[in-house]
């Protein structure tokens, strides 16, 4: 699939944003984060900016952005529609939660519910995004629950990195997130590796369908002539292929940036370094992770082969 910048931006940015919205209420509830006004501003503002930026980014590639509102109408059947709705719905509890945290500097008692609601809505939004891809049968690479797991876990991981980094600059020692970071990094690594190890298989399965693509039992078909000698929409949108070698290199980079880097910066370091040094390395550490997640998303598209490519053969 063609890795469109707008979609990559949208999914990664909003992923991190919703990650923050899922985690911060919980961390607050467990007292791991204090209900400190300015910390609240420093966390919720970027989170909401990220999701909003993501939402806007997702409209960039539309042919008719002015009609975007229509996309909310088909929640009965369409995950894209559901995502849109959830994204908007989430603003509600998030606002209330923000008022409690920033305005009242409390997250306990009745106000706890706003946190729970925000976390749930944000998680649900991440889930609906994942389902858009999960439900596309013609892209076997995506048609797996690992896709869902991937979107959720990476949302949470990037969210936690944001929380850790920002709060560290408020003098909150990252060590308090150490175990959570460890858990998320490990899960993320497991999920992505599972996803990747399954990928090769799906390509082979797709290849095996080539005969079926033209209703022939006789098996393998070889494309002799395309219906058009230059690229058309279908090829530009769905014919994208990334070279195996190139992909492997990018996967290695992704592993280092997305798993190794945070493991060092947010799991190991906190036990070794004192503040304020930790705060200083947190920012570059976070940057690495965000680059890592963008790479991961680029690969998510670039490595996904659409079955329509069967009609165009190897070339």
């Amino acid at each position: 699939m063609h890795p469109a910048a707008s979609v990559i931006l949208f999914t990664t940015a909003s992923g991190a944003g919703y990650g923050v919205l899922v985690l911060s209420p919980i961390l607050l509830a467990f007292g791991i984060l204090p209900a400190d006004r300015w910390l609240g501003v420093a966390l919720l503002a970027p989170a909401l900016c990220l999701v909003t930026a993501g939402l806007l980014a997702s409209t960039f590639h539309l042919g008719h952005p002015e009609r975007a509102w229509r996309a909310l109408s088909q929640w009965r059947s369409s995950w894209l529609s559901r995502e849109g709705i959830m994204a908007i719905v989430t603003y509600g509890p998030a606002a209330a939660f923000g008022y409690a945290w920033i305005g009242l500097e409390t997250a306990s008692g009745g106000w706890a519910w706003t946190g729970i609601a925000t976390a749930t809505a944000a998680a649900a939004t991440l889930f609906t995004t994942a389902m858009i891809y999960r439900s596309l049968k013609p892209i076997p690479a995506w048609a797996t629950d690992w896709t869902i797991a991937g979107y959720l876990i990476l949302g949470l991981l990037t969210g936690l990195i944001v929380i850790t980094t920002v709060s560290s600059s408020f003098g909150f020692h990252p060590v308090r997130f150490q175990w959570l970071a460890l858990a998320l990094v490990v899960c993320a690594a497991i999920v992505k590796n599972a996803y990747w190890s399954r990928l090769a298989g799906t390509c082979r399965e797709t290849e095996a369908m080539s005969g079926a693509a033209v209703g022939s039992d006789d098996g393998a078909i070889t494309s002799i002539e395309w219906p058009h000698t230059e690229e058309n929409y279908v090829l530009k949108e769905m014919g994208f292929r990334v070279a195996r070698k190139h992909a492997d290199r990018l996967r290695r980079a992704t592993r280092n940036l997305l798993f190794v880097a945070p493991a060092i910066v947010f799991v190991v370091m906190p036990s070794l370094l004192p503040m304020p040094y930790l705060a200083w390395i947190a920012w570059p550490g976070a940057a690495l992770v965000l680059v890592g997640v963008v790479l991961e998303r680029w690969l998510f598209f670039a490595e996904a082969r659409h079955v329509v490519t069967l009609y165009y053969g190897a070339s």
Partner: protein
Amino acid sequence: MTCLPQKTDRKLGLVIDLDTCVGCQACVTNCKEWNTGGHMAPLTDVQPFGPGADGVWFNRVHTYEVATPDGDSRTLHFPRSCLHCEDAACVTVCPTGASYKRAADGIVLVNEDKCIGCKLCSWACPYGAREYDATEGVMKKCTLCVDRIYNENLDEEDRVPACVLTCPTGARHFGDLGDPDSAVSQLAVQRGGKDLLPEMGYRPTNKYLPQRAKADHQTGAGPLAPLDETAGATGVLAWVDRMLTRAG
């Protein structure tokens, strides 16, 4: 409304005979000329006289070589257009309701006034049947010539899809595949009509008739026996003499 109809009154669609298709592209250009002025008009062409010319088409014909069991191969011409699937995910994924399947005849259409051009439906189509018109900012696709097949301004016998009307070899057939007695249903049964990519589970309405086993009349024939022991011309001429004098 992008929920699929429980059932459709008719299942209008095409039956395409891959054993007869010579790959002439007539269905391709006829589809283009009808539809560029039809329900989805226009089928925009970008850089029509320059490099990278790229237009919107609803029907495309591929050429393949297919390996045959005997280790040989055959050349196959393969027309590809919307199959008007029963489980059309291109419809259910649509967030706006622009993409829909008609309850009356099962035709899958795009309502251009609702379409926001998110392209998700084209991702959901395994068959590459949807082509995005970047200029218009909307998705376009085969309409099964919905503006021909019921069109009272056309002669009765012309109320078929343009691609069917024009096919010089008669490889394309149009009808109600929901009616088991219809000519197309019968044809599909007799000739073992196929669904494309059944693995995808979209239950296409259109059927493809596979290439037939090669007609083979040698069985009837058997090797030619030479006339008689007298070899060569002498033998032939002697035989001719016999035959003619018998005749005379």
